[in-house]
């Protein structure tokens, strides 16, 4: 059975189980590290325009309505859905297509968080829309071989990005020049999008887009190196010091590494994702930094990565009730603000396996010191 047929089969089962007449999977065309890209996942193609929807009837008839119209051929070639229709008037065409497909009555809507008022008004004039994100989340629990290949390949690209980070981080280089070098190597290696936040200085407060600041000897440079391929995010959180790290920095980073290791040990299928966050917060709290484990200093301790951010979700923290499952891709990062050292980056993306986790990166999570 082809991958589309498998996905259709699974979604049809869920549609029937919930008594729905069909499903709409919607996308506003954005690609977010903290939110799922349900439509991209469902049809296997990243949409370009601001309004896009896949429509699936309970009998298995499926079509994709996209913007801009001129992108139809690309989407048709790349997508698992072959009936692709361009639209110059999305609201009107969505309502028409829903009627053509008999999508009236109770119809599931996945990706509602991206649907704007004007599109929702048009769609809800035809059908009684029901929340259905769970259908795509459920489908994404089993990864096809093709998806796993993308996971490993994106991990390879992340390592290449980190090697460039280490190579080009040197005094005199501006933050944005460093990012330019990292982006270049990762795109040349096959990334189709990039997400890099960083910061440099003696005491970093947060990570941000690159500025004009020139790196100096003694700087602590922190970065989230995140290539994207076919919607799959992969993140390495790294800290590089230009020069010999101060003893206090080594000591605090060792503490974060301990937190990282303990949180990895806590991860296994069927346990609540909060265990990962709690394990790391316990180590950091025992070191005397309990208040720095929570907002406004810290937020999430990890994210589930897939096409965008899938289960266990865009923010894994002490309250996350969802459980880890085999084949989930999860970034685990005890990135931490500490009063003595400033903000430090530490962590990487792992694959949940039967026995725990499999590291996806080849480069090590540690404090890197670069001779200057």
């Amino acid at each position, binding site marked *: 059975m082809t991958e589309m047929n498998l996905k259709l089969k699974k979604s049809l089962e869920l549609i029937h189980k919930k008594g729905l007449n069909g499903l709409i999977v919607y996308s506003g*065309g954005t690609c977010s*590290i903290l939110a799922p890209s349900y439509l991209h996942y469902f049809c296997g193609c990243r949409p370009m325009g*601001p309004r896009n929807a896949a429509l699936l009837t309970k009998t298995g008839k499926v079509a994709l309505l996209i913007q*801009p119209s001129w992108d139809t051929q690309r989407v048709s070639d790349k997508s698992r859905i072959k009936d692709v229709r361009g639209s110059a008037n999305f609201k009107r065409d969505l309502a028409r297509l829903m009627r053509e497909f008999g999508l009236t009555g109770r119809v599931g809507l996945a990706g509602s968080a991206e649907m704007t*008022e004007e*599109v929702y008004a048009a769609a809800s004039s035809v059908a009684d829309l029901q929340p259905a994100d769970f259908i795509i989340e459920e489908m994404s629990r089993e990864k096809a071989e093709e998806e796993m290949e993308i996971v490993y390949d994106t991990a390879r690209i992340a390592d290449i990005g980190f090697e460039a980070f280490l190579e080009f981080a040197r005094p005199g280089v501006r933050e944005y020049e460093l990012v330019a070098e990292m982006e*270049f190597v990762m795109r040349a290696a096959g990334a189709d999008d990039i997400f890099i936040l960083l910061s440099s200085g003696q005491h970093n407060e947060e990570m941000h*887009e690159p500025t004009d600041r020139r790196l100096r000897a003694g700087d602590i440079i922190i970065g989230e190196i995140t290539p994207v391929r076919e919607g799959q995010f992969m993140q390495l959180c790294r800290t590089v010091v230009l020069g010999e790290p101060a003893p206090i920095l080594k000591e605090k980073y060792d503490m974060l590494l301990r937190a990282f290791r303990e949180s990895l040990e806590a991860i296994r299928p069927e346990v609540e994702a909060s265990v990962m966050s709690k394990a790391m917060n316990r180590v950091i709290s025992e070191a005397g930094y309990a208040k720095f484990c929570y907002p406004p200093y810290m*937020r999430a301790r990890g994210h589930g990565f897939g096409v965008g951010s899938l289960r266990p979700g865009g923010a894994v923290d002490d309250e996350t009730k969802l459980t880890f499952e085999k084949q989930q891709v999860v970034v685990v990062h005890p990135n931490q603000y500490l009063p003595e050292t400033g903000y430090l980056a530490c962590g990487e993306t792992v694959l949940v396996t039967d026995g725990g986790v499999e590291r996806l990166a080849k480069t090590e999570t540690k404090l890197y010191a670069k001779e200057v």
Partner: protein
Amino acid sequence: METMHPALKNGRNVWDRVNMPESQFQARVERVRAQMKKSAIDLLLLYGRGLTEYADPCYVSNFVIRLPRGTIALVPLDGPVVLFFEGGPRGLPSLLATTCVTELKAAGNVAKECAKYLKEKGLVTRTVGLGRFEEQMPYQEFRALKEALAGCKIVDAAAMVPNLRMLKSGKESDEIRRAGRIVKKCFELVSSACSIGMSEQFLEATLRKQARLEGAEDIRVLLAVANEKKSLRPSENRRIEPGQVFILYFAIAYERYWAEGIKTFAAGEASFSEVASDAKSVYYQAIALIKPGRTVSQVYRDLFDGARGSGLEPLSDYGLGNGIGLSLDEPPVISERGDQKLKEGMSLALRLAVSDKTHGRVMVGNTLTVGKNGVEEVT
């Protein structure tokens, strides 16, 4: 032009107060307020979403959100502009460094936070103008906001700020020129690049690096092979073969302002060269006619009829152009029937796509600023 939305802008993110002084934003807010008074609006809410549609809140603040999420700019008739952005408070120090607004509020839900603020400050006034909320804001948030504004008279103010944005100040035109220079440099790089064995993705990576090193905040790239059915698309991991003709769309934002250019190249045995096509002469004849007072439909006809007159079949898939500035696609739209007159200070992204017997398809496009006596080509 529609392009892929990135996960993050990734490039140099600074507010250069020499290039764009605070006084520019104060003057803009005053212009917005004058329009509000004309429309009897007591309070204006402007919505922007993501890394493409940020222009309206940015116009009064220089603020661009980090992730593809929402921002509300609240403009009262008196008092400071307030910004609500979807995100955590940890990012505030760097975000505050790139906006002139001091009242910057992190929110899990911008609609709820904005509604709460309006209530607390007694700002739920008689007439509220909404800028692009129905078009951009997720419906759940929109409905929550509308409920909070129950009792107010709601006025559609979607066109108010885009109309003001059409006319650029000298400082804004200079930013567009800076962006244009980077686009130009990158096109020059294509001509000097070695074509042997280069893939589309590698070409894109090379151009992006050049643009980033020049200070590009955001970059959008599309490519099409001239004799293939597919339209402009993201680059793929495929070799550019000698003899292949391809169209390259390249747009960059510099300190929030965009410029775009489109050129058609042929891959030779060792290098790329821009193809010679009648489309280019038609294009330049048409832009030579542009001056203040000419309507958008006249520009449309100059391009369209000019192409036909030269035996070329114009293709209207991508439109012939639009305004460009804080957004890649803003008013005025170059359309067949529009009566909008061009004015000094406007910036246009003007493009021509034709079906060409020799190459298949050819495209040419530039960013232009409209001056007193004609246009200046900035890319």
